[in-house]
């Protein structure tokens, strides 16, 4: 019983860390975007203010029970991903659920939220929401292919499907997987563009044509939960990449440095890019990223 309580406590702490880091990263992204566009930009804590304002909105509307449950579904996905990904290696601060799930489980739990959210967006009856959802799902089919190829390459090279197993493999050889399996890393990073949905892959929420797509009927606290979920999810995904390709992190500072460096790849690429159309985006993912994924698998088979 005590163990369970400690686990819950650890989960809450992890959640708070992820929330704060994710929100700060979001704010920094806005700041960096502004600087690239030669603006002053909002303060780095602007996202916290926005979130708090959304949470303190006095009214909200909903279109039915699935709409109410949408944000909760989204949160399940984010928090479960966060709990299954080992936050710090060789550290018992955040044990969470690391040992209960593996990569395949993670791939599926990561799709749980977007699908639940899609149901919520569907029930609003706003055509823009449904269009956004179809775009998002199409894009998901696109980027999951190189992403899974990269993961399969890692799995077969190190004969394990668990994240901790891959981290141990890096600890033993002393090299990061991004150097020993470079093609897998390239494919995974390219897939990351789709995962983070920055330009040119922000086709889901395209504010100018879809009126922010799936979230268009959500305001106030719904939007707050979605925003927090997005922050937590960002952190969880970055941590996953760090664990898989960059040897994990033994303390929080290293983790922050590594995740931020990685996070800047899609952000900086996105700032200077216009938006793809859906089929262009999907085909982009099935082009070079899939090619690199194939190379990664070939490399893994040869080196196995």
């Amino acid at each position, binding site marked *: 019983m005590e163990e369970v309580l400690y686990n819950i406590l650890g989960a809450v702490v992890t959640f708070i860390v992820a929330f704060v880091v994710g929100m700060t990263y979001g704010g920094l992204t806005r700041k960096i975007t502004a600087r690239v566009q030669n603006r002053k930009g909002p303060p780095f804590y602007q996202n916290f203010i926005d979130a708090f304002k959304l949470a303190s909105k006095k009214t909200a509307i909903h279109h039915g029970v699935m709409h109410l449950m949408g944000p909760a579904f989204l949160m399940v996905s984010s928090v479960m991903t966060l709990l299954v990904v080992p936050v710090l290696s060789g550290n018992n601060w955040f044990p969470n659920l690391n040992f209960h799930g593996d990569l395949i489980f993670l791939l599926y739990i990561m799709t749980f939220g977007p699908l639940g959210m899609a149901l919520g967006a569907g029930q609003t009856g706003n055509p823009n929401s449904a269009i956004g959802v179809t775009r998002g799902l199409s894009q998901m089919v696109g980027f999951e292919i190189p992403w899974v190829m990269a993961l399969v390459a890692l799995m077969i090279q190190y004969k394990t499907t668990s994240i901790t197993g891959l981290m141990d493999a890096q600890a033993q050889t002393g090299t990061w997987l991004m150097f020993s399996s470079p093609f897998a890393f390239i494919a995974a990073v390219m897939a990351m563009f789709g995962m983070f949905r920055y330009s040119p892959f922000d086709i889901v929420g395209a504010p100018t044509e879809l009126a*922010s797509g799936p979230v268009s009927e959500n305001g106030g606290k719904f939007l707050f939960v979605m925003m927090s979920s997005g922050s937590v999810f960002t952190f969880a995904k970055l941590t996953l990449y760090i664990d898989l390709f960059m040897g994990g992190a033994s303390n929080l500072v290293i983790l922050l440095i590594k995740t931020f460096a990685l996070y800047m790849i899609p952000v900086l690429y996105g700032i200077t890019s216009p938006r793809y159309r859906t089929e262009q985006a999907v085909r982009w993912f099935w082009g070079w990223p899939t090619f690199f994924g194939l190379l990664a698998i070939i490399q893994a088979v040869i080196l196995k």
Partner: protein
Amino acid sequence: MINDKHSQKIVDYIQNWSRKHSIWVLAYGTGCGAIEIPPTMTSRYDAERLGVRGAATPRQADVLLITGYLTVKTLKRVIRVYEQMQDPKYVIGFGSCTINGGMYYDSYNTINVLDKYLPVDVYINGCMPRPEAVLSGFAQLQKRIAEGRADGAAQYKENLEWYRANQKRIIPNWVMPEYNW
């Protein structure tokens, strides 16, 4: 505890502070004044440093910016959009047209005084107001929010019948849903 008068004051203060620094403007250009919004938002004047940014739909927005003259047709949509926004919400009247009709004061199909149809929190004078004036308008709104005086939504609710009568007088075929917040 939380309903205690003093703690309520503190909560209000914090909430107003966050509302003040996070103003999401509905991207809805009603008249010619909308042309001043792009320079206000982009690099030259950069309203985002004040926390002002665009929102895509009325559900997410805080501020409805009436950019210039309102034709009767547009007024109907504006009222609809305003009623879809979530509390607390503010209206900024932008340009002379919203104050007294401006150069359209004797037009057959524009309204002259916006305040009769929607509760305006802040007016920005000028035809057009330059981005500096827009920014100062936002600053004024922020000041009112911080002081807790930007209560247009509450006024609208209180005097709904008066507003409705005015709206119905000007809009010929009235098919709007009930507003029952």
